[in-house]
């Protein structure tokens, strides 16, 4: 097997690899396909400083390839390079979430994904990629792997199941120089100098997804209510809202007119499945409501599709992490769907079970992350918790179940907003950041003892 071979001892973060790549592939700054992450770039005296130069690792089991809804990724068989078909990419950026190595890059001008192509034409011609060809210190190479001298992992390198085609020469120089400067005083908290890396998820970029994920549980529950005879909605209004939800989520794409390509990869892409299952829900629900309102089995089928879609949506977000350590989130739309369905069916037992579940998950997360929250985040959390607690309280006070919708809905909106603003996705800079924090914790414990 062959690929990039990186020697941390030799890398000096000179950025020549990054520029060599840009020259070879005609990339205009600020776009670049290779990046350098510096561990401890603010030079904390307790830690070494070292660098990682990473581009695409052309993984054997490339996650980007598996998750692309448009099946736009393909592998150049000779070089092994993972490439993007620019005519198929819909610009959904889902691969930028899936890749823990931050290889795919969304190009704002082209509105599609670009990424390292391993300089495959060079490689197929017997040469090495431009970055490895021009590393001034010889830190970055390309060639056959040797398990005797090289390792699969390195400090700061995110571990995944993707089988990345990169090997590392063990870091001999990851030691800190002995120095005599007086130690950092306790008044300096690392929050003061440690800048959090890009989380990859930002509410302002993902508002279309937020709207969609708020609407889908309501639509599913709404349909349930109509079917059960608890709710009377103009079928065309329902259709309008369902169509708007679909269109809004298409706005999220770099290439909205290629939206139909999003169903090209149902076999392995949760995103493709989401769009497909929403399509099934949408068409069956509208057919039932507008054409065959008396054909109730069709309505039930639509609800089943809605529930499947809700389940699938939560899978789409599997790359999100909030730092709490558990991978179940209180704002998962499947739970929210169940919440609204039990509310509209006026079934207190399942309703309070879902509320209890959401509350436990929410409290667990907040308690874990409390110290790192900003004051306004704490206030929002407070409202969220009140919203969940109010429901059983009001019920005990004989308020009609359906009236609980309003406080609950506010709480759900808060939770989902937090979902997009508090979560982050694995990346090399994140990995380095987290390891620095962990290593500093370790170091300060040592000082105390």
């Amino acid at each position, binding site marked *: 097997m062959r690929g990039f071979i990186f020697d941390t001892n030799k890398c*000096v973060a000179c950025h020549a690899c990054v520029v060599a790549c*840009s*020259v070879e592939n005609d990339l205009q700054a600020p776009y670049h396909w290779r990046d350098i992450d510096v561990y401890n770039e603010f030079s*904390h005296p307790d830690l070494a400083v070292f660098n990682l130069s990473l581009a695409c690792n052309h993984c054997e089991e490339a996650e980007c390839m598996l998750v692309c809804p448009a099946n736009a990724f393909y592998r150049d068989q000779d070089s092994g390079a993972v490439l993007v078909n620019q005519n198929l990419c819909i610009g959904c950026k889902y691969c930028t979430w899936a890749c823990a190595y931050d290889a795919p890059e969304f190009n704002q001008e082209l509105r599609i994904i670009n990424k390292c192509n391993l300089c495959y034409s060079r490689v197929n011609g017997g040469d090495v990629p431009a970055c490895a*060809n*021009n*590393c001034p210190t010889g830190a970055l190479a390309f060639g056959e792997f040797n398990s005797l001298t090289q390792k699969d992992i390195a400090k700061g390198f995110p571990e995944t199941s993707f089988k990345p085609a990169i090997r590392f020469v063990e870091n001999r120089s990851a030691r800190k120089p002995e120095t005599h*400067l007086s130690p950092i005083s306790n*008044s300096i908290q690392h929050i*003061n100098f440690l800048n959090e890396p890009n989380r990859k998820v930002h509410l302002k970029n993902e508002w279309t997804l937020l709207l969609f994920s708020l609407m889908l549980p309501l639509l599913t529950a709404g349909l349930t209510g109509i079917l059960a005879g608890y709710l009377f909605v103009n079928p065309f209004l329902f259709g309008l809202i369902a169509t708007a939800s679909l269109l809004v989520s298409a706005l999220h794409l770099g290439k909205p007119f290629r939206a139909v390509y999003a169903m090209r990869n149902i076999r392995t892409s949760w995103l493709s499945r989401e769009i497909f299952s929403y399509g099934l829900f949408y068409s069956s629900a509208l057919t039932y409501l507008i054409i065959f309102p008396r054909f109730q089995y069709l309505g039930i089928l639509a609800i089943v599709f809605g529930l499947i879609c809700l389940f699938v949506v939560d899978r789409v977000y599997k790359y999100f992490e909030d730092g709490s350590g558990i991978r179940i989130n209180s704002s998962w739309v499947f739970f929210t769907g169940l919440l609204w369905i039990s509310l509209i069916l006026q079934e207190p037992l399942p309703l309070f079970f879902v509320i209890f579940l959401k509350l436990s998950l929410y409290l667990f997360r907040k308690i874990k992350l409390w110290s790192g929250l900003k004051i306004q985040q704490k206030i929002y959390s407070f409202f969220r918790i009140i919203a969940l607690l109010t429901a059983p309280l009001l019920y005990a006070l004989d308020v009609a179940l359906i009236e609980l919708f309003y406080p609950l809905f506010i709480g759900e909106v808060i939770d989902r907003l937090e979902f997009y603003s508090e979560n982050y996705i694995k990346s090399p800079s994140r990995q380095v950041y987290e390891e620095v924090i962990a290593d500093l914790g370790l170091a300060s414990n040592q000082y105390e003892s």
Partner: protein
Amino acid sequence: MKLISTACPRNCYSTCSFKVAVDKGKIINFEPHPDNRATPEGICLKGLSYKERVYSKDRILYPMEKNRAGIFKRISWNSALKQITEKLEYYRKTAGPQSVLFYESSGMSGLLNEISLKFWELYGGATTSYGNLCWPAGLEASRLSLGANRHNVPWDLENARLIIMWGKNSVETNIQESIPLEKALEKGARLVVIDPRRTPTADKSHLLIQPRPGTDGALALGIAKILIDTGHIDNEFISNHVYGFEEFRNSLSSWSVSKVEKITGIPSPYIQKLASWIGEIQPMTILPGYGMQRYTNGGQTIRCLLSLQVITGNIGKPGACWHYANLQSYVFDKLLEPLSYYPSLSKNTPFRRSISKAKLGIDMLAQRDPELKMAWVERGNPLSQNPDTNTIIKAFRKLEFIVVVDQFMTDTAREASIILPAKTMFEQSDLIGSYWNPYVQLRQKLIEPPGEVKPETEIYRLLAKGLNFSESIIDTHFPDSNDKAIELWLKTKLKVYPDLNYDKLKEGPQMAPNLQEIAFEDYKFDTPSGKIELYSSHAVELWKVDPLPDYIETEENIQENDSKELFYFLTPNTKNRIHSQFGNLDVIKQFDPDPVLDIHPEEAQKRNIKNGEVVRVFNSRGELRIKVRYQLGLRRRCVFTANGWWISEGGGTNLLSAPRETDMGYGTAFHDNLVKIEKIV
């Protein structure tokens, strides 16, 4: 597509060889040149940025004239040359040729640069500038001690067992030196870095010593004292090759570890440890940087450091080397640096009047009989790179007419009356040497100059015609700019060295004739005594300094009882620029978008300054507004920002530096520079 060999002419240690892929007259890509043993793996990001630099939308491609509203408009070469010729004739007639300042700097190396000076000589003279902004104090110190500036070939560093990067951040300023450095470390060598900053080079080291800036000489003398007291010196080497050891030893009687600790701020155990490593680990190579000698005590500091190399006998052997500057490839220069930096002593030459590069602004203003009326600037950006920018701006604005030859709209170009477009390294062939690797190299012409760019040789040839120089003079001194004529001119230079063949140079770097791979391996020293001179009477005669290496405080310094508001302002170089070049390119800006000031968070928090906040950095000479970045590896009471930012980019570190010369060599002491830092309210 063709792959053509060339070499980088920047003022940089590495002087890399590389190959350029050219297709249909355009630069496409770059390839490493493995024939250069010092730079075989590849060039740095700046070299790779040449593709943008050559074809940049911001490049000046036509002569430009500043109109009354202060806006530059394109003009024809005819109009530009006519105006310049008229001014030159007018000033020569009315005020004399010395009313014109000819200012050049280190923007691009090459033998053809001498044609510029020839033109001004034939014009009747001009006011020129002496000294240098970079390294003369250290060159002079090394020359006084060793007789010449030579060091071992770069790849010999891997033979050293103890490597001391003394004020040198090679990882950024000499990237390819990382190759032999890493090889040495792999073989178990120890690396010591001495620097107030924890630089990327320090991150590779075993021991980092962070002295108070400007006190390196004291540290060296203290260690010398320990080495002598403990007998860790090479007596045989000293008696055979060293002059003045007894005097040196006696002069150290007042030194003690506690005195060094007090001066440098380095705790005694660390001084002891460094001394024991120097005493016990052989062979040792000290690599002094050029920053330390840009203080008012710079030359003497370098002599102090060099004494450690000498008394331990670490000269003339593999792995044992004083690695300051290697001028062995400067084979075409009649007068080597630092002697070429001396001002002319003769009263009757065309260049009888020369002003200090270090004091450019005040010297320009001080000239009388005649006053300066016009300036011609090429290969330099004095507004950003010479000390005391505010005075320089004043001096430039007092002039009546300014011509600047440049590729981009630098701070200096903005002051011009007329800007002439300058060639890049790919648009005319030339021969270059290196002050680090041992090669003579041909910087080959690869493409035609774009737009209306003309090489300086052509500009001067046209001016010579305009000024009615005789045809025979023009033909003798100003080669036509066609490729054949330039090649012929260069081949004439090569005649002296039969081993240097033009066709071979077209293929790649050639070893300098008479190269000593291990410098001073013959133990011949071109000093008055023929030995290494610890005691130098020349030092006294030329510079009125102590004949022995000694330590005196820098002119601007912070003592324990001084105001807590003062900081040492450290302004070294970065990997992202060569002085004020490259920073304007998008490819560089993506890594280094704006100036930042590194400060220790404890110092910042005392002043309630947050990470990322813009602060005011100031002293009596000027001020800067700059964004703060917390850096925990920095010595307290020091702040750091890289030099070379243009004022128009918010940088301009020389707005704060003082116009002072170093103690020897006519260097520039801009590192004697204290500032205060203030929160902007």
